[in-house]
């Protein structure tokens, strides 16, 4: 099979599964059978992606079909574009989707069969959409899949739609990302107006031989970047991601950690040749990314909900990727995307195992789980070490590459922010580890390790995280990082310092968290208040939109309705008055005829 067929197979299998589950009601109602079908489909996809990844020819493969015919060539096409970027992303998406769907069988075992069927239908749709997004060969197609994954995110966050917080979080996620998508679609249309094509390959060609008009290109690329800001939860549109944790944990692992939120980063990587033409936008991306990384890291320090800590950590790591892209190290950013996808999925699934066991999200109600759940502890620790960036886990190499890339890119202040974030990342992650697994015991009941169907994905991810890291280490490791020698040492030192500090604070209690909170009172207060961004948005919403609505309501109630009422009142009054001229007597009407006759004659006479 050639590359195009493989890619189409990877894309088509989840779609067939979704259609089957959507149409065949008994199948969907069957619950676990629906899950089996969906898992089989995504497993096939994974296989196809793996083969594609291994056998990919050197140059990119593009298949194109005409979509919107127009004079002088089709206005829009559909197609797939496969290169190394696409292939590795395909493998990541298919792999994490497969593992998460498998894991969900155990995690959601108490759901009713119809709900489970619905869950897997959404999952198949998501897999199809995400793979389509990755394979898209033009902006238009990408936008369509982009919106489809947004829809799936909405559906899956709101999976427990009877829970008010979940429904609210789903709507919030949908609207906040839509704010960015608005910029995205405007940017696409403007770009089409400039270049006359949606197709990546032609755009890259134009960018390469300098035939792309650069006037206004910065604005266009900024607008396209806005789409990435919304999807990848960059400041100031990151507020939806922590709330999205209301969805089931496997969903958080798949959509809100490993794949969909990385779509923004993937978008920027995908059209990186275009971004290279606008260095200002790139610098902005770098600064915003670094700032997001630092901001989210501080927010992660004060969360008590294990999933929210991970969510802020996701935001923070997405900031790392964006910062790398902005600094010109697109390879490093994408590399971090891949490793992060693995270990963040691992962390979320591990957290899911803990939540599944103890029945709460609050880390202060857990504790001493290391003894009850040794396997979970080990895999969670692997993920945490990888996230903190400790050698030889995969995260070490990618984070190191990011830091080196940012330093090489000349963004000194963003580099400092990222360095601080590295320290904070290690601190807040080990805070979770120490409190949950080694802290004083609070949890009631008998926590135990996850059943095999949940444990297997955890182990696979853990082995991949470690194995990839070791593979990189034995192959020299530093091939991706060509920054100064001291960068890996600095990163490791900061991470170790963060771990040590967390150990001192939460394990040894040398420094109490209260002391720390007092010492950093302004930051602590701001972080607890989420930097008041939600309040700001709420206030803006209330003052502008609601104020405007009230104004419109007033205008409608008093001006428009008033005019209508006035018109009807006048009609009534005039009708009542004019009624009296209808006497019902034929002769009175004859007077009217005579008068009309007079008028006609006079008119004819004086004309």
């Amino acid at each position, binding site marked *: 099979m050639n590359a195009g067929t493989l890619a189409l197979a990877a894309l088509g299998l989840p779609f067939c599964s979704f259609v089957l589950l959507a149409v065949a009601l008994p199948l969907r109602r069957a619950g676990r059978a629906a899950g089996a079908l969906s898992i089989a489909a995504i497993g096939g996809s994974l296989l196809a992606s793996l083969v594609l990844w291994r056998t990919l020819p050197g140059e990119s493969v593009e298949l194109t079909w005409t979509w919107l015919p127009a004079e002088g060539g089709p206005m829009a096409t559909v197609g797939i574009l496969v290169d190394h970027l696409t292939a590795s992303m395909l493998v990541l998406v298919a792999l994490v989707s497969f593992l998460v769907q498998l894991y969900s069988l155990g995690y959601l075992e108490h759901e009713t069969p119809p709900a489970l069927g619905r869950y897997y239908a959404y999952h198949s749709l998501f897999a199809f959409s995400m793979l389509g997004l990755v394979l898209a060969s033009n902006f238009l197609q990408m936008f369509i899949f982009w919106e489809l994954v947004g829809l799936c995110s909405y559906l899956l966050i709101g999976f427990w739609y009877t829970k008010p917080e979940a429904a609210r979080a789903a709507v919030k996620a949908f609207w906040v990302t839509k704010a960015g998508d608005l910029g995205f679609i405007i940017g696409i249309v403007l770009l089409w107006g400039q270049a006359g094509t949606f197709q990546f390959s032609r755009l890259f060609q134009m960018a390469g031989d300098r035939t792309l008009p650069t006037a206004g290109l910065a604005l266009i690329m900024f607008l396209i970047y806005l789409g990435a800001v919304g999807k990848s939860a960059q400041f100031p549109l990151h507020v939806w991601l922590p709330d999205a944790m209301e969805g089931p944990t496997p969903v958080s692992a798949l959509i809100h950690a490993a794949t969909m939120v990385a779509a923004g980063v993937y978008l920027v990587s995908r059209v990186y040749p275009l971004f290279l033409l606008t260095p200002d936008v790139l610098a902005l991306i770098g600064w915003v990314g670094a700032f997001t990384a630092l901001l989210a890291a501080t927010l992660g320090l004060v969360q008590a909900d294990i999933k929210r800590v991970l969510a802020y950590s996701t935001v923070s790591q997405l900031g790392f990727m964006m910062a790398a892209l902005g600094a010109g190290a697109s390879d490093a950013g994408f590399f971090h995307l891949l490793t992060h996808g693995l270990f963040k999925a691992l962390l979320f699934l591990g957290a899911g195992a803990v939540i599944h066991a103890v029945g709460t999200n609050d880390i202060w109600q857990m504790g001493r789980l290391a003894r009850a759940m040794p396997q979970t502890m080990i895999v969670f620790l692997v993920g945490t070490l990888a996230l903190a960036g400790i050698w030889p886990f995969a995260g070490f190499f990618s984070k190191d590459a990011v830091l080196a890339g940012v330093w090489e890119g000349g963004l000194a202040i963003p580099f400092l922010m990222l360095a601080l974030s590295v320290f904070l990342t290690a601190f807040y992650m080990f805070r979770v580890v120490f409190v949950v697994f080694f802290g004083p015991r609070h949890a009631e009941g008998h926590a135990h390790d996850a059943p095999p169907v949940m444990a297997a994905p955890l182990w696979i991810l853990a082995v991949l995280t470690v194995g990839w890291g070791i593979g990189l280490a034995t192959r020299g490791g530093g091939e991706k990082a060509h920054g100064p020698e001291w960068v890996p040492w600095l990163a490791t030192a900061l991470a170790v310092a963060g771990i040590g500090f967390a150990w001192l604070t939460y394990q040894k209690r040398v420094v109490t968290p209260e002391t720390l909170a007092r010492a950093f009172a302004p930051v602590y207060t701001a972080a607890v208040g989420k930097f008041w961004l939600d309040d700001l948005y709420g206030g803006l919403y209330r003052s502008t939109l609601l104020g405007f609505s009230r104004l419109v309501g007033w205008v409608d109630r008093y001006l428009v309705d008033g005019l209508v009422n006035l018109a009807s009142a006048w009609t009534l009054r005039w009708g009542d008055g004019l009624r009296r001229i209808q006497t019902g007597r034929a*002769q009175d009407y004859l*007077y009217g005829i*005579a*008068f009309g*006759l*007079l008028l006609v*004659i*006079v008119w*004819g*006479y004086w004309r």
Partner: protein
Amino acid sequence: MSLEAAGFWGLALVLLASSLAVVLSKNLFHSVLYLAVALVATAGVFLLLQAEFLAAVQVLLYAGGVVTIVVFAIVVTERLVGERLAQTNRGVFTGGLVSLVVLVILVLSLWRADLPRTAPPPPADLTQAIGRDLLTRFVLPFELLAVLFLAGLLGALFFARKEE
């Protein structure tokens, strides 16, 4: 004063006087009789205008037919109500004013209009011309008239039926 003029003025006098009597008489029966006079005088006017055939039609159909029907109706109505039908006028002043204004304006416009003063010589046989035209140029209105009469006949039958 030619014979024609004398005839015209005489007929006009009779016509106007009897017409006024039609609209002013208190007795309905008298009104109808005055109408008969007015219609016959109109037939005279037609004679002055060389339309002998029409004058004959006027006398036969109008003066004969209409007046007979009206008298018949009055008699039936009076029999039904059991008393003589008196009739009065209402709003004489406004009615008169409106009519007068109409008259003044009509006459004024006629006065200023440029109208032929002499008549062309009459055709040899006017009645024949009428007959020919009626069955050639105006055959469609003629036939439609028949349909109209049929409808009228049906309507009259409907009105005249016995109440169930």
